[in-house]
């Protein structure tokens, strides 16, 4: 390491062997830093934001609000970015977020067959499976087979709608509110909303199920 700033992660500094990839990545950062293109502290700040601030809790709060506030739900389905922009506690919403609603007749699922497009602001960074070939290749052709890999089974008459995220529009699934949650607060409901339920590869937790 040619720069000696204070990393948040020191765990691998005392390893005697680094992989070829680690060495190459470190070399690139060294060059970019020496040439004045990047500031290592700014890189640290970006990483810290993704590790600590941005994650599916953002999307979960939006879903919970939609479950409890019909006017918000209507606004959310009409213009996702605008509606979320009105919520002070969910910052960083990106442009062109489209929220798609699951119903008893239709189940929505989101994929990016070309790469990894995903609503980072709402869900954090995508999981490895979302960016990997099995999901990207099969989601548009055999979504029920993909759902089976997640132990999710849908009645066969339910329409499956797959949204392939091929432009800068981002999609968030609004799952159905679990039964038995009448009178629950937004905060309680948000605890039931999983990341996968907002991608369409899972359902919200049932009340009383372990989180």
């Amino acid at each position: 390491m040619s720069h000696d700033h204070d990393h948040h992660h020191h765990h691998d500094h005392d390893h005697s062997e680094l992989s070829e990839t680690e060495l190459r990545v470190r070399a690139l950062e060294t060059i970019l830093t020496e040439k004045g293109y990047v500031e290592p502290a700014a890189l640290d700040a970006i990483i810290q934001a993704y590790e600590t601030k941005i994650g599916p809790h953002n999307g979960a709060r939006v879903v919970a609000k939609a479950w409890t506030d019909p006017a918000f739900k209507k606004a959310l389905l009409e213009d996702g970015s605008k509606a979320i922009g009105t919520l002070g506690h969910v910052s960083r919403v990106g442009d062109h977020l489209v929220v798609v609603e699951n119903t008893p007749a239709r189940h929505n699922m989101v994929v990016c067959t070309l790469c990894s497009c995903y609503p980072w602001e709402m869900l954090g960074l995508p999981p490895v499976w979302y960016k990997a070939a099995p999901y990207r290749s099969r989601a548009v052709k055999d979504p029920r087979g993909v759902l089976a890999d997640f132990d999710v089974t849908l009645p066969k008459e339910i329409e499956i709608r797959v949204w392939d995220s091929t432009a800068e529009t981002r999609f968030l699934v609004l799952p159905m509110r679990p039964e038995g949650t009448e009178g629950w607060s937004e905060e309680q409901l948000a605890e039931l909303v999983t990341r996968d339920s907002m991608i369409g590869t899972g359902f919200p937790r049932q009340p009383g199920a372990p989180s």
Partner: protein
Amino acid sequence: MNGVHDMGGMDGFGKVEPEPNEPVFHAEWESRVLAMVRAMGAAGAFNIDTSRFYREMIPPHVYLSSSYYKKWFLGLEEMLIEKGYLTREEVAAGHAMQPAKALKHGKLKVEGVERTMVRGKFARPAPAPAKFNIGDRVRARNIHPATHTRLPRYVRGHVGVVELNHGCHVFPDSAAMELGENPQWLYTVVFEGRDLWGEDGDPTLKVSIDAFEPYLDPAQ
């Protein structure tokens, strides 16, 4: 380009393997790669479409055998070399040897990071009226550009219905080649699963893509 990145509908990649309690990063170097890409993009060294194109140009056998952030790294390094920000000699030496090239927006500083956490805006004023209306039947063009495109192969030649109009947006096919933003109307077009995958396809399946106007022709 018809690369291995365009995976929709391909068989043989096996099962999806969800990882319980997956960490945000599996290794520290992954986080450094992500941050370098974000910082150099924010500094104006490249646009998002160009960076996607460089990942697509990774040789197929390397693309398929590299982890996600490894692909990001390989694309970033090659792009910065080709755009003149680095030299191969510097990469080999692991140190700067040449003067820096000016960055369009300047180096991203810590105080600028928060602003970059909000995704960019790609909507642009319309240069012409939209050709298609909601409900129109359209055929995805049978085009095979050797450069970057966001029209996946599995819809080419197929007829779908315009469902949403997102307004005009930066056209990735032009932007990736640094030929300007060339804004185009963007629509969500929905296809019947059986039109795409034949009679054996799931009868309840509908698949949509977001298609720029130059990807579409009117259909009867």
